[in-house]
């Protein structure tokens, strides 16, 4: 248990938003969302060997990290998340035809294979950085409003908002459940463990999930009664948003033009 109870859970269940007042924080959420998607699409359109595209996109994400005052370190540290999935792309190193750079048993590492592998690595790494800057500078309610403005169905948006409202409550509930289980589980100094078989342990985890689900059903009944009592009629009413300032539109247009330019550049320099 060296890393604590949650050492092996993937999500660090904290709101990723980092409060601040930088240029990127003040940029309209819709603009940020669109530019993030444009950047990831530009990366996706780039060929494995289009290094110029990767270089320019990396410049954009690192600049955004600096401008947002999150710092390059913060973004790079969080972007290491992508590493485990790299395993899935490893076979491609050896699966491409071409002259071998290195041969080992029956496997041969080719330039084409290396290029394609690095392409995948760079694309996912850069896309991740863009997403990290987006969520670290935009509070969830603003993101939801931006998604709504981009025509995501209202039901889906309000459900997601409700999920976000109760997520951290549930996470705390789960943490209490895990702590209670830990408190009742004995582990001797020499590594002997109490408790039953694997199947028994799985059943216990299942019972905890069942308990969580039953509570969530009961909670949602109370929540819905409260929503009805406050005049909910299928629509969530929000404070009207101020119109986007002109500089937001300028940033959006300039950004989109830049990404289009990078895409063309990638094709031309091939």
């Amino acid at each position, binding site marked *: 248990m060296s890393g604590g109870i949650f050492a092996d859970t993937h999500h660090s269940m904290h709101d990723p938003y980092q409060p601040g007042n930088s240029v990127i924080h003040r940029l309209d959420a819709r603009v940020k969302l669109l530019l993030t998607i444009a950047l990831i699409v530009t990366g996706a359109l780039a060929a494995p060997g289009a290094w110029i595209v990767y270089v320019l996109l990396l410049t954009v994400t690192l600049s955004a990290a600096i401008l947002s005052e999150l710092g390059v370190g913060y973004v790079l540290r969080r972007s290491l998340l992508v590493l485990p999935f790299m395993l899935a792309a490893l076979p491609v190193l050896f699966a491409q035809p071409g002259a071998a750079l290195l041969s080992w048993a029956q496997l041969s590492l080719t330039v084409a294979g290396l290029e394609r592998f690095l392409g995948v690595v760079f694309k996912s790494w850069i896309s991740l950085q863009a997403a990290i800057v987006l969520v670290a500078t935009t509070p969830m309610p603003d993101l939801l409003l931006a998604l709504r403005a981009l025509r995501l169905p209202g039901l889906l948006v309000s459900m997601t908002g409700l999920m976000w409202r109760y997520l951290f409550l549930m996470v705390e509930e789960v943490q209490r459940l895990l702590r209670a289980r830990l408190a009742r589980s004995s582990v001797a100094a020499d590594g002997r463990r109490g408790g039953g078989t694997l199947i028994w342990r799985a059943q216990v985890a299942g019972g905890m999930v069942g308990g969580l689900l*039953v509570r969530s059903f009961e909670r949602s009944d109370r929540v819905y009664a409260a929503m009805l009592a406050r005049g909910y009629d299928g629509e969530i009413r929000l404070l009207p948003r101020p119109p986007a300032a002109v500089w937001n539109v300028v940033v959006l247009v300039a950004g989109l033009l830049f990404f289009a330019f990078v895409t063309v550049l990638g094709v031309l320099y091939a």
Partner: protein
Amino acid sequence: MLFSAVAMHIPDGFLSIVVLVVCWVISLTVIGVALRRLNRLDSDRNDSLMGVLAAAIFAGQMLNFSVTGGTSGHLLGAALATILVGPYAAVLVMTIVVSTQALLFQDGGLLALGANLFNMAVVGVFVAYAVNRLVRRLLGETRLAIFISGFAAAWSSIFVASLACALELAFSGTSPANIAVPAMGGIHALIGLGEGLITLGALAFIYAARRDLLKLGQAQPNGSRAVLIGGTLLAVGLTVFSPWASSHPDGLEWVAEEHGFLGAARDSLYSIIPDYVMPGIQNEALATIVAGVVGVLVVLGLTLGLAYVRRNIRRHAS
């Protein structure tokens, strides 16, 4: 690390444009149908249920049990959601969970979200529903039948979804089918056992504490024939096609090259190294390395320049 539910969240950069577009179209269509179904059928539905249930499943994915040697079993929850609220609501619940994981926690990419939704919210839910229904039709409506069908639904939802994930990687030319399919399928056949056991435990608890909730899921009118047929087709199709694809990796590679028209067009447009050697360097590999170093220097220069300018501006401002 591989023994967790996250092994199935594909990041950006791993899938080709064609695979992405196909997955997005299918996922959005299914989500659209689910939204319309729910709006039409349940005029007095509890609007907060799906959101709260999504939060519970999201948080419930943190509940684990140790398997052996530091690995642990986790929950994905598609089967549980399907059994509790019916397939259409479950599609939406899983959509919310998977999208939030991608958007807020970078668990899976934003563009790859279409594929991740397809695997976990469409394949996972449809297969769980079909298996659950079919097993229950065979065994009747006894207590044992509820548990067995729940376990089977949970295991197959994980296993078939992982096959879909492996095939997407193979069609994108990221991971050859003869490696991706056995690796993903094999690992998730084990992970699926964990999912099945947790689902079983959860159903046993709910059966004892709130049996009416299980009845609620059964009585859901939204479980239509279309989901049953779709889920069966997905399950059978993917399990039959995967071994075939895995034994014909070249065939799939050919499909990826020929029919992935963008990929093919791109490859010819971008055969970058042969004519784009750094001036004066004959060796291809060396040229690539030099190009990489130059790239890194450009990035460093531009970002350091930006940082410098910013510091100057701030000094002038203060």
